[in-house]
């Protein structure tokens, strides 16, 4: 039984001219059963020109919103065009779309509301840097103590959401570093969040949205956001 007929891949792109063409072409050839939309987050390079030249399906933000605002635009798009499920795939090629069928299968088997592609279940592929893993473990422990759920990869952006979650995220999605916070938001609303092992590649180009200079801000902001999210009702 196919529960999820219309599926959308959301590709947030900020200054991704080096990767965007390869990423989208790979998606079109690898997972033809998914539609895709690129959200160009007001890139300063010629990402927009590449999207136009290749006649890719894209939404162009007139103002830079940051990763959260861009991804949320994708969820709003999914809601507007009636998609049953939406998944975020990064433009830099670190998410391997051949895993998408596993994510969908998992969602169908478990009747899950969101399936997170986790790097840390099979512990294969690019495992991130040591410092980041320390941060990720900290968030895993924090989410466990606040909600009782174990999420091994709370910072993974490679996540498949069903219609209910698409609706929630369209209404309310954190502006920056959205992943861990939005998991707590869903768990508090009794959404079923499960994980599926995936391998990730090291980014092909471009820069991470988390730089060293902002990592302290990142830890503090996400910690506070999770705490506030967990006392919200």
């Amino acid at each position: 039984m196919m529960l999820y007929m219309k599926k959308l891949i959301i590709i947030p792109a900020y200054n991704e001219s080096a990767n965007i063409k390869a990423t989208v072409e790979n998606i079109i050839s690898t997972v033809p059963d998914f539609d895709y939309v690129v959200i160009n987050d007001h890139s300063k390079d010629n990402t927009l020109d590449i999207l136009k030249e290749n006649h890719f399906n894209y939404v162009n933000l007139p103002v830079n919103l940051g990763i959260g605002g861009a991804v949320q635009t994708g969820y709003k798009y999914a809601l507007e065009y009636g998609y049953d499920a939406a998944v975020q795939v990064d433009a830099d090629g670190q998410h391997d779309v051949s895993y998408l069928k596993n994510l969908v299968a998992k969602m169908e088997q478990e009747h899950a509301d969101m399936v997170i592609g986790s790097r840390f279940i099979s512990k294969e592929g690019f495992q991130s840097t040591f410092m980041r893993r320390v941060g990720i473990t900290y968030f895993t422990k924090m989410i466990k103590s606040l909600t009782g759920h174990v999420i091994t990869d709370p910072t993974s952006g490679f996540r498949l959401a069903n219609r209910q979650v698409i609706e929630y995220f369209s209404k309310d999605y954190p502006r920056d570093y959205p992943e861990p916070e939005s998991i707590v938001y869903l768990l508090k609303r009794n959404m079923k969040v499960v994980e599926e092992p995936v391998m990730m590649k090291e980014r092909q180009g471009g820069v991470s949205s988390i730089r060293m200079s902002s990592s302290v801000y990142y830890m503090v902001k996400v910690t506070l956001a999770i705490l506030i999210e967990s006392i919200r009702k």
Partner: protein
Amino acid sequence: MTAQLRIILIFMIIITGMLVIRQIKRKNLALKYTISWLFLLFVILIVSIFPGILGWLSGLMGIELPINMVFFLGFIFTLIIMYRLTEAVSKMSSEITELTQKVALLDKEIKEQNKK
């Protein structure tokens, strides 16, 4: 408060008040966000004209030097104004996000319509 300080204060308030009102008239400042500034100016003006109020209030709050009371009040006022601005900026920021997304999605829809 010495007479010199009072004169300087009154002089500064008149200049600042005139600047603020001129900017409001030119619509460079929204009255909504300027009322707290005008109120602050008004309070300083009253205190400069009747410094007795300050002495009385300082005595009441256990502050020895009335001039410290001026600093204290100024500080509290500034904090309130800054807090209100942070609130306004947060609200605007989420409104801009909302609008940007709406514009982008509408733009997409129009382009799709035109293709057909």
